């Protein structure tokens, strides 16, 4: 870890972190602000929903229509796309560029000519990814918590909310590790950003596909989204050990692999 590099990266990435955080916070708050109206139209929606196929609800992570009307059910069903998908895109774009940008901007020739080890470069930069993703998650979850407190009509399980928040954080961190790994495999590639975003969207698409199509349900297992349990209103909702192992284990393996690869990587400019 090198303080100078770490501070520089924090500063250099602060603007985009604040923008992403702001956008996701606004989206969450806006969505939650329509909860009241949603409840008022409850009966109409209930009637409408009952004719929807079961799969369409499952797609939103909800097993029972009535769950959608609890504030936490509404939160987890409607904010998935922001917190899970946008948060993951933020994490993977940041992490896949943080090392690689030095190559395609040709600044690696300066950075690596200064007294720094490859390990210090890697750890300082991945620490910034780690902290930024945590920051994004804390602020957006806080926005969710505050807006739920404002709009709720009945109490909800804080415990379930915290578990959902932790799932989101782990998924985002996992994509952070994927980004690091991808960037150590390619050479000075600019299209890494498009690739990263594409990967998140494809995996999310596979997950939704597996949810709504019975025959394709197995495909879901290759998508990390599958391991995020969104069924927050289920009375037995808890953190599953298997999923914890999946996220933490894979993230660690990918990060360690990236570290080893980066230490031996030829930096061509």
């Amino acid at each position, binding site marked *: 870890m*090198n303080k*100078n590099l770490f501070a520089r990266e924090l500063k*250099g990435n602060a603007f985009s972190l604040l923008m992403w955080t702001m956008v996701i916070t606004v989206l969450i708050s806006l969505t939650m602000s329509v909860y009241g109206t949603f409840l008022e139209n409850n009966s109409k929606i209930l009637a409408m929903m009952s004719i929807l196929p079961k799969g369409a609800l499952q797609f939103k992570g909800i097993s029972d229509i009535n769950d959608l009307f609890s504030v936490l059910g509404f939160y987890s069903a409607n904010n998935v796309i922001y917190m899970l998908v946008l948060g993951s895109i933020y994490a993977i774009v940041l992490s896949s560029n943080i090392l690689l940008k030095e190559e395609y901007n040709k*600044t690696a*020739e300066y950075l*690596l*000519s*200064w*007294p720094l080890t490859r390990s210090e470069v890697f750890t300082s930069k991945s620490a910034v990814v780690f902290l930024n993703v945590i920051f994004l998650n804390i602020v957006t979850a806080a926005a969710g918590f505050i807006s739920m407190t404002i709009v709720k009509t009945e109490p909800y399980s804080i415990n379930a909310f915290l578990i959902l928040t932790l799932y989101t954080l782990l998924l985002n961190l996992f994509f952070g590790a994927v980004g690091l790994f991808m960037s150590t495999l390619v050479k000075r590639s600019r299209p890494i950003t498009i690739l990263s975003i594409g990967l998140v969207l494809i995996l999310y698409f596979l997950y939704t596909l597996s949810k709504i199509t019975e025959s394709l349900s197995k495909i879901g297992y290759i998508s990390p989204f599958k391991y995020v349990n969104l069924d927050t209103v289920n009375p037995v909702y808890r953190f599953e050990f298997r999923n914890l192992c999946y996220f933490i284990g894979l993230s660690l393996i990918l990060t360690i692999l990236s570290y080893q690869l980066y230490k031996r990587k030829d*930096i061509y400019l």
Partner: protein
Amino acid sequence: MSVPIIDIRDLTKTYGKDRGIEHVNLEVEEGDVFGFIGPNGAGKSTTIRVLLNLIFPTGGGATIMGMDVVRDSKKIKLYTGYVPSDANPYSSMDVDEFLNYCHGFYRTGNGADRIAELTELFELDRKRKISDLSMGNRKKVSIIQSLLHSPRLLILDEATMGLDPLMQARFFELIRSENRKGMTIFFSSHTLSEVQLLCKRVAIIKEGRIIKVEDIETLRKKQLKKIHIEFADRADNEVTGLAGIENTPVVSGKTLQFMYSGDINDLMLKLRNKKIADMTIEEPSLEEIFMHYYN
């Protein structure tokens, strides 16, 4: 004899189908101003990038100040400065920010004084954003960052590219004065004339191999000129028999062209009765010199 400051032993770097460099051996003594010349793509930058551990050797190895370039890279870099051939400092920073960032990695000497002194010498505006700077000004930023910590060894890769003649002269003066104070300079370039101005010894690299290590004096004695004469009327081989004609002169129409290493006065004397419309005497390109002496 003391340990060479740069010691490259049988260094090979291949990547994919590209040649890279093959079995490069080179020693540079401390206090030297060492030229490293060769045409573009000969392997100069590859060699330098191995020394800086940007890329890893395929075979062989190298030491700087007796330390291994792979294992002790960080320690080596405390005492080396580097000016890359492509000057692309962080474009989002301004000059001051970049130089302070760079100095932050060394924690030696008084950075602020040194930055002030060098930016003044190169007439560089410290408040300008790097993305707004011209190629030449970026090069100045590059040069300054390499000198902030007063390195023992300065590695320059095409360091004068983009600098105007006045700045180039200042830069050479600075290098000479730093060299007098003990700094070793490793000067990579494809321009023979600037290497001649500065260096005591040169290594010539071509197609990934060192083909000659020579004192600059020896090379200077072989000073070769490319002569092109346009006569008022039909040209003939007017210079037959003159000592120092290095190839078979080419005659076409009114023009005569040849390589000459003899005394210019002898040539003038030989031509004194001819009516000449135009004449150029130029330094041959490095490639032409190679073709001549090392093929």
